[in-house]
């Protein structure tokens, strides 16, 4: 995703005062938020699907999912970004439109984070005592009722802390998008810092503050949610 004409213009005119720099960063932070928001929207539910795949009774599905998780966790996200971006061209010989990178970045982030979320969900489900399933079964709850009414609420509470960690990592990981020339905030900050007549290193410092404040907000919201679920052990 490219920011509006404002940023290139600023970069070109070399009148990069500190207020202009902050404005440019703020605008590019929109791209960071775009990657962040859509990745969560996609990866949180997809992680559940991946978990179900891992638990599938069909062996080839399990093999596929385990292979996928192991690749996602065992290779750098930056490499995954590049592979997703170039795959249509390299594998299918298709030339993608310029803005394909805006979708490619989301696909790469979503499939990467879904793998991590799936592992978190797995450990969450495994931490639920088997007695919960047995009590539900004896009371006659169906499989679906047991999952949605009894197990899932307890699992969600247990995975909130690791999910929060993952979300905070995601905020910082968005900067890897520069690997496929998606200009989110950090990429822009580097460009500004390197351009003549700019505020220089202060730009990177300012970018750090953006991340920090945003992560502070994320942690605050997650703590609120955790508090909401504090009513049971």
């Amino acid at each position, binding site marked *: 995703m490219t920011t509006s004409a404002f940023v290139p213009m600023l970069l070109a005119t070399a009148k990069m005062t500190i207020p202009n720099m902050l404005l440019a960063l703020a605008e590019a932070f929109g791209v960071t938020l775009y990657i962040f928001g859509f990745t969560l929207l996609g990866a949180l539910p997809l992680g559940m699907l991946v978990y179900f795949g891992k638990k599938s009774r069909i062996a080839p599905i399990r093999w596929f999912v385990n292979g996928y998780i192991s690749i996602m966790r065992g290779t750098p996200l930056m490499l995954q970004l590049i592979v997703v971006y170039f795959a249509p061209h390299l594998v299918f010989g298709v030339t993608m439109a310029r803005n394909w990178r805006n979708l490619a970045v989301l696909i790469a982030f979503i499939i990467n984070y879904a793998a991590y979320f799936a592992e978190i969900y797995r450990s969450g489900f495994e931490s639920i*005592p088997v*007695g*919960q399933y*047995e*009590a*539900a*079964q*004896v*009371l*006659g*709850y*169906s499989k679906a*009722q047991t999952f949605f*009414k*009894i197990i899932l*609420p*307890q699992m969600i*509470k247990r995975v909130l802390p690791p999910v929060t960690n993952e979300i905070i990592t995601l905020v910082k990981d968005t900067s890897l998008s520069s690997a496929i020339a998606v200009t989110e905030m950090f990429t822009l900050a580097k460009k500004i810092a390197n351009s003549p007549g700019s505020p220089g290193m202060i730009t990177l410092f300012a970018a750090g503050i953006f991340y920090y404040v945003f992560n502070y907000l994320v942690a605050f919201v997650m703590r609120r949610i955790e508090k909401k679920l504090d*009513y*049971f*052990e």
Partner: protein
Amino acid sequence: MSILSMEHIQKSFGDNHVIKDISLTVDQGEVVSIIGPSGSGKSTLLRCATLLETIGGGTLSYLDEKAAWEENGKVIYKKNLGEVRRHFGLVFQNFNLFPHYTVLKNVTDAPVSVLKRDREEVKAEALALLEKMGLADKADAYPDQLSGGQKQRVSIVRALAMKPDILFFDEPTSALDPELTGEVLKVIKQLAEEKMTMVVVTHEMSFARAVSDRVIFIDGGRIVEQGKPEELFGDTQHERTRQFLQNYKQ
């Protein structure tokens, strides 16, 4: 008509033959205690009766209707096990209350969402049951705010709210501090007086003696001896039973 009938039940875990031919019939209003050393198969027997484990052989029936039986050397289970489950309730050693539900919701949720009964009617009954068990003020509490004895009483109420024909207990006081066992045993005793049909696995010999119509001693996956409490405790027939009971005499 018997409430529960188990005939020639067998159960193995791999090479471990845990239940070796146990037959047991429980009649309406009867209270049966099962005693025996640790590892003798008591829990496994209850888990087979409550469909938490599949039997390896034999016949399992509730109210004279077969739930599981053998055909050509294979065990067949009835198609609709939900119907079978309506006949029994099970009280676990470690309660297994749902921690995210209040006491009231723990009790009312299954009658409402499984039996599809009227919410208000179920709630009124649940409150009455909680009141009877001395838990009236705990309806809105969460399980982790309760003592072990209170938790176990709630789990008894949860089982009763399903109006089972028979209630199984697997060492209902073993996870409790000694000073809390009394309040739970009192509740079970009260149910016995109301002629609730019950099978109780227990290590509380004086309780078994006072409350049961029949006591069964199990060892090594077999019933060694059974009878009225005064027979089994007073006039023990088998050496193995005597040895076991010896451990409980001060």
